């Protein structure tokens, strides 16, 4: 009988997460849950987010207490059909040994480094079958922007996420930071990983880069998913861009990041500190200023992919956060023939705030 | 008649001009200080001109010197703007240090003048640093620190001599021995051995020259600077000299023997000795020297007038220049 019982575990968001706080339950014992339902809030020192049910079923027991800290993969709840007796559920709960908080759980090399012609590029991989997905972050971001997506997508296909040049822990000394160097880096990484064709998923500037790759190398792109993408119109919140590039201290950076999220509280101290640590690396300030100079002119987007994509035969979908305060949501309809989805209650970082919906959309496309 | 001296004619004129400028600068300060025009206190270099100029004539801007609290002479000899110095002594905003340094801290790094110094012997390690920088940056600059016979007892000077010797630095230690450490006669203060012996003890050669004879200082300093530039390492140069005025202005100098000042002025005035030698040898004429005298007097007069008329620093200046960025 016990194989009918399905556990609800503390999720693992990103490599460095060791434990999380179960902030609050959204469902009562005895309710029927279907996959994707919001069942609880979990907070880590880096980010807080709502957890959506991975599996459906009748919630028989809420094991985790609100406000308590649990290690990753700890048992928080039990789903089981009505015919499973409470005694069996209790036995299952008792038998479940709580995993220790591992110090550095090494599930294979967390990150890899590829020495490409453009320089050293950091990337991470989730193995899988079929045509791979390549996740491309936006301006000032890094591969950790896909914290809530990469594992979910890995169920459907191999997934790669990279730090673009000048970002994350990739090479900083780049000759002429601009769209071209970004496109080259993506293609060079695909060659390095001998990926013939990939589904490109690009967020913000990453969307512009993905589109340009599809225009320059149509044969290498199986499909396009443009999330709050740049390159679909000229308008942009240049205040955010200038604020982000110009911020030199925590006090200056924190207010700027509020533009990224519908729910302002998601801008945690750790997020601000991580971005400051990145911005203070040698060469980053110069790189960002040069990149901004290349991508934006007089406060408007200089590069566009709409015209170019007319010749792209593969499927294209556009996803936008309704509350996007960086790139106007109107740009979502810029590509004729593309399927467009607008997700309510999410801002510019929609892949984080509406992660499960975005994951579904990407899974459906491939 | 051909020129028997180790400097060309314009070199001799330049040497005389610098010495005369120092003398008149200090004489004027003595008078103005007496009238109460000058804030704070000053230490005057009059009488020691031949030593300062005799050495500085061998130096360029990339050679660095560190001076003492009696630094006006070193500054002028090294080419610091005289008007800027006078304005500084009057505490004016146009002073060489914007009125913030005063007589004991006049400096001009562009001229290689690392600053006068109110702390005895403090210039010695600084100059070792300048010499080390010259070595590391690969130019033939030398570092020269001036200190008085009294300051030669400062630990920092003795430590610096050792440092310069073991690192073979192009550093030159100039003892301006005017026989008095403030009011203490030198043979009381110096533990019965001489500066030259101390230098030898640290493994560097030491020589003594008559500081009132420009040519003796010039020739000796020339060899010492040449040796340092060519990697010969540090040297001590003791200049036996006399100062016309007290340790500081207002010092009654009761520690001197009766008539000592008058005798010094008459017989050991380095300007008179210089003038006699160059005119007797027929290389320069009194007319040429007198012309320089006149130009110097005008320069000093202008410097004082402009200094008096110059603006005082503004209240905002109080807290600027503390840091490059803060």
């Amino acid at each position, binding site marked *: 009988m016990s194989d009918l019982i399905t556990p609800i575990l503390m999720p693992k968001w990103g490599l460095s997460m060791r434990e999380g706080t179960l902030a609050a339950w959204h469902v009562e014992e005895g309710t029927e849950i279907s996959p994707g339902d919001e069942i609880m809030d979990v907070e880590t020192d880096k980010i807080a987010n709502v957890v959506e049910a991975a599996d459906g079923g009748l919630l028989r027991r809420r094991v985790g207490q609100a406000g308590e800290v649990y290690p990753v993969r700890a048992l928080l709840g039990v789903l089981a059909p009505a015919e499973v007796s409470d005694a069996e559920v209790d036995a299952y709960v008792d038998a479940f040994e709580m995993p220790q908080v591992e110090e550095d759980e090494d599930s294979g090399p967390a990150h890899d480094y590829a020495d490409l012609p453009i320089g050293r590029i950091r990337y991470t991989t989730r193995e899988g079958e079929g045509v791979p997905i390549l996740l491309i972050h936006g301006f000032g971001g890094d591969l950790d922007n896909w914290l809530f997506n990469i594992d979910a997508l890995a169920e459907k296909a191999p997934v790669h996420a990279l730090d673009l040049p000048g970002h994350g822990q990739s090479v900083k000394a780049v000759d002429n930071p601009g769209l071209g160097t970004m496109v080259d880096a993506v293609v060079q990484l695909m060659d390095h990983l001998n990926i013939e064709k990939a589904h490109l998923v690009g967020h913000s500037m990453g969307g512009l880069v993905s589109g340009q790759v599809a225009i320059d190398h149509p044969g290498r792109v199986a499909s396009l998913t443009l999330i709050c993408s740049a390159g679909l119109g000229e308008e942009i919140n240049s205040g955010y861009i200038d604020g982000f590039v110009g911020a030199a201290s925590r006090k200056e950076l924190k207010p700027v990041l509020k533009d990224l999220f519908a729910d302002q509280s998601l801008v945690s101290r750790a997020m601000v500190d991580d971005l400051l640590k990145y911005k203070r690396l040698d060469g980053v300030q110069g790189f960002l200023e040069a990149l901004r100079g290349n991508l934006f002119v007089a406060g408007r987007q200089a590069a566009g992919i709409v015209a170019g994509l007319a010749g792209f035969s593969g499927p294209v979908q556009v996803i936008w956060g309704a509350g996007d305060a960086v790139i106007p949501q109107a740009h979502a309809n810029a590509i004729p023939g593309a399927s467009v989805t607008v997700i309510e209650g999410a801002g510019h970082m929609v892949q984080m705030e509406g992660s499960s919906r975005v994951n579904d959309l990407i899974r459906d496309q491939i | 008649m051909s020129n028997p*001296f180790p400097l060309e004619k314009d070199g001799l004129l330049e040497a005389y001009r610098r010495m005369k400028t120092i003398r008149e600068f200090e004489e004027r300060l003595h008078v103005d200080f007496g009238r109460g025009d000058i804030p704070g206190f000053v230490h005057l270099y009059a009488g020691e001109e031949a030593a300062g100029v005799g050495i500085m004539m061998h130096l360029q801007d990339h050679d660095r010197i560190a001076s003492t609290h009696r630094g006006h002479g070193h500054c002028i000899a090294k080419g610091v703007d005289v008007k800027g110095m006078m304005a500084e002594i009057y505490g004016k905003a146009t002073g060489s240090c914007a009125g913030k340094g005063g007589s004991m801290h006049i400096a001009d790094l562009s001229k290689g003048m690392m600053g006068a110094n109110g702390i005895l012997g403090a210039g010695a390690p600084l100059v070792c640093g300048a010499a080390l920088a010259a070595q590391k940056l690969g130019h033939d600059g030398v570092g020269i620190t001036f200190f008085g016979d009294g300051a030669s007892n400062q630990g920092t000077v003795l430590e610096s001599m050792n440092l310069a010797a073991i690192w073979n630095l192009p550093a030159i230690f100039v003892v301006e021995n005017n026989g008095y450490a403030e009011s203490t006669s030198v043979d009381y203060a110096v533990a019965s051995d001489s500066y030259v012996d101390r230098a*030898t003890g640290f493994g560097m050669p030491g*020589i003594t020259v008559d500081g009132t004879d420009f040519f003796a200082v010039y020739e000796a300093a020339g*060899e010492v600077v040449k040796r340092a530039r060519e990697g010969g390492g540090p040297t001590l140069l003791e200049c*036996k000299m006399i100062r016309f005025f007290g340790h500081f202005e207002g010092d009654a100098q009761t520690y001197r023997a009766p008539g000592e000042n008058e005798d010094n002025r008459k017989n050991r005035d380095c300007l008179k000795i210089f003038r006699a030698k160059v005119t007797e*040898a027929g290389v320069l004429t009194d007319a040429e020297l007198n012309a320089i005298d006149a130009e110097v007097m005008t320069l000093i007069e202008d410097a004082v007038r402009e200094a008096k008329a110059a603006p005082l620093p503004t209240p905002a200046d109080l807290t600027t220049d503390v840091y490059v960025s803060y």
Partner: protein
Amino acid sequence: MTKVGIIANPVSARDIRRIVSHAGNLPINDRANIVLRMLTGLMATGVEEVVIMPENGGIRTQLMRTIDRESRMGHLRFPRVSYLDMPVTCTSDDSAEAARQMHDQGVGAIVVLGGDGTNRVVVSRCGNTPIAGVSTGTNNAFPELREPTITGLAVGLAVTGQVPCDHAYSYNKRLEVRVNDQREIALVDVAVVSERFIGARAIWKTANFRDLFVTFGRPDGIGMSSIIGLLAPLDRQTPEGRRARLLPLETAKTRLVAPIAPGLIEEVGIGGVEKVLPDTVYLPSVSAGSFALDGERELTFSETCDVSIRLQTDAFRTVNVPDCMAYAARHGLLTRAASEALRTAHQTGRTT
């Protein structure tokens, strides 16, 4: 009451030859120690009073500190020590003034701690007072290398008359140079150089050497006189001098490698060597330049000057230390009956 003068000028052995060559530097403490050893020799031979040149270079301070200490502990006894009453200029002029005053006070002899330069200055002012040199200077051709204690003994025996004059003293040659009405002497050599300014006094730029006159020149000597010493040696006694015409290397027929200063061995262009007769006027081979007396430029001259160089024999006396000691040995001057020796030793020792 026999009195001896001591001149030890701290300014000696301080000149530029430390830089342009490798001349040594005798520390002040050692010089004070030499005077101390000298005093013990003088005391032991009956000299009861010594007068010393004052200076503030540190020798006096160190000496008096040591004498006071030794006297308090009763180890050694010294003659009465006093200092001349004269202004101190910290230059070689002090040596000249001291020599003059000591001559006026009628001292028996003057002991000179210094090199050729200091001895030259003393001889030029001390009249016929005999001198005894202890080499502590830069160039030490004139003063002999000897243990100061022995020099003290010899001088004591000489001035107290225990050794008769013909054994105690020997006569020395001297060179006299005149420029117009200025007159200067040299004990060892007169060099003529083309530079025409005094400056740092020493001479080391051989290209500027033009002429050389010497009173004597030893093959094992140091300084300019070594040029004659290596070409045509001449002793201190022979009543004649030597002259060498010196030329820039390019024009010289022969070249001589000579130790012209401690640690400085250079090639010198030689034009020719010839004998110099006493009391005969010689003229320099160039019309303008400077005279370097015993290695230090002193007088400059030009075309319009009336210039002459003359050798003088038996010009001044020095204490002949070896003969004094030999005589003392022959005549048992230092042997004492057992009791008498102790008594005299305690009785006379006092310091001022």
